[in-house]
């Protein structure tokens, strides 16, 4: 089985992305506006994508001697859970409001990062989001995403 390092995978991913986007720059939507200012809207991005493609290939060549990517399953599982928790938090902020989402996130993330003492987690989850919400929403008057289910927050 060939050895594949993470840098090589990133290089390959970037190269594929660059090829796809270079192809995309030839879409009709960009050709129509070519008359606008001498140079079309994708003139500069096309140069960048060309350079990106060359550099990605160079990174792949250079990374062929790197150590192969090794993944430990428990770390990978923790990573996936942390990513899901953070992604879920980002979605929940817009759907359930900042305060509720932050309380939930503050309860979930510390155990995922290996911290299991319940009392400090509960104290932080109860106080920190409330303080931040009160400071921003009520004192500084920066409106935060609000919950569709409650009037106050």
């Amino acid at each position: 089985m060939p050895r594949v390092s993470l840098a090589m995978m990133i290089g390959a991913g970037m190269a594929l992305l660059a090829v796809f986007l270079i192809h995309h720059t030839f879409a009709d939507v960009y050709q129509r506006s070519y008359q606008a200012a001498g140079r079309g809207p994708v003139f500069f991005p096309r140069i960048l994508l060309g350079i990106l493609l060359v550099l990605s290939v160079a990174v792949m060549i250079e990374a062929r001697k790197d150590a192969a990517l090794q993944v430990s399953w428990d770390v990978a599982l923790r990573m996936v859970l942390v990513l899901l928790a953070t992604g879920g938090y980002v979605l929940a902020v817009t759907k359930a409001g900042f305060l509720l989402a932050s309380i939930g996130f503050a309860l979930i993330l510390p155990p995922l990062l290996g911290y299991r003492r319940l009392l400090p987690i509960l104290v932080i989850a109860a106080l920190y989001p409330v303080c931040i919400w009160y400071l921003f929403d009520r004192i500084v008057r920066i409106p935060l995403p609000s919950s569709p289910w409650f009037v106050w927050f």
Partner: protein
Amino acid sequence: MADLMLGLEHIASYQTLLSILIGTVVGVIVGVLPGLGSVIGITMVLPFTLAMGQMPALAMMLGVYCGSVYGGSISAIVINTPGTPQAAATALDGFPMAQRGEADLAIGWATMASLIGGLFSVLVLMLVAPQLAAFALNFTAIETFALGCFALICIAGVSQGNMLKGVLAGVLGLFIASVGLDHVTGDMRFTFGNWQMAAGINLIPAVVGLFALSEVFVRASESSLPKPKLLHRAGFRLPAMREWRPRLGLLLKSCAIGSFVGALPGTGAATSSFISYAEARRSSPRRNELGKGEPDGIVASESANNAVTGSAMVPTLALGIPGDPVTAVMLGTLIIHGITPGPRLFTETIDIVYAVLLILVLVNLVMFAVGALGSQLFTRALRIPEPLLMTMVTIIALLGAYGVRGNAIDLLIAFIAGVVGFILRKGGFPLAPLVIGMVLSQMIENSLRQGLLLTRGSFVAFLERPIAFALFAMTIAILIYINRALLIGAFGWAGRLLRR
């Protein structure tokens, strides 16, 4: 003189003075906590600055910046773990002093050296930035384009890790910032029909993701979870004047190294402190004691890294070109508050520049007082369990991403940037060039297009202007130097192919 008085008037408000104090305290705490650093510190206070006036916001940013650079030295001395990379060299002599029971004296040396380094850099900013801005006023679009390319390649070239990967990250940053509305033709680029992407990818959510969220993901990916560290008792004791006298030459030399290195794009406080430490190792009369708890090491490292703070503002304010991610975020915040850095800042609103200088002086003085009075207190922050700290950082950093435009898409951008930042960091790609690329993208693109209009579409005519030619020559030289191994390999392979 009238402009100086106007600058003084700008900062003479209780909000600005309070912001300096709070910013510096927050900065020192952020600096003390290993792994957070100046960028995360600034993104954490960013949401607060949105509700502030121009000067208090600026004061808080500068307070966090200078405070965090200094704060890293406290944990470097007390637990042998630098709070920020800038303080790594401080640990080499600071921790042995703490082991001897002289942690308070080591913090005294670090605080005093930081104060002098910081004030020295304000002097450099005051003297150099106006000259550079006056010189840059003569630039046409062609020189601006050449300067943008040069700055980006410098940053990518000297960034930590692999230089080729640094250039790739820089180009990726340039491309990411080109997504959205094309400012010349008014067309949408790479939005794939999503109207929310029309405004493009904002710098602040990207920085929040790349630095703050990716840090959480990196820590989650570590196989062993952090263990509590041995804390040496901290305190503050100023070294006697007679101890300073033999070290004044070293102090001035380190300040000069820090200021020079700080003004160069891409280099930062970490580079300057190591160069300065290496110079102390070469030239100090007490060089044989370095690494065993000799104050020369602390003086060299701390004066140099704090001397970067003011001089890093030289290219940021005079040219609008940030030298590192910290000044890039600061530049973004200045623009949000209606200040546009660049040569015209020095001709049209010099009072703002004087206000920045005065704030920096005050921040350094407050930093000294805060360090002297609170170093023991700040080390208590090291007792906060890392998972709880990371949770708090994530919440406040995402709030910063959301607060800039009040747009939910920025939260998603921050999350995606966090995942991308995590993957790039694991693959050994530096993130600083990516951020600087994002900042420079519009400037480079606009100046390229304007330049082509000036030269009637000829790239060759770009080389007819002497300053632009010199900048292009230096850019190409750096690129060749970066890729020398790859080029030698390619030429060798081509040669073998031809011989066959």
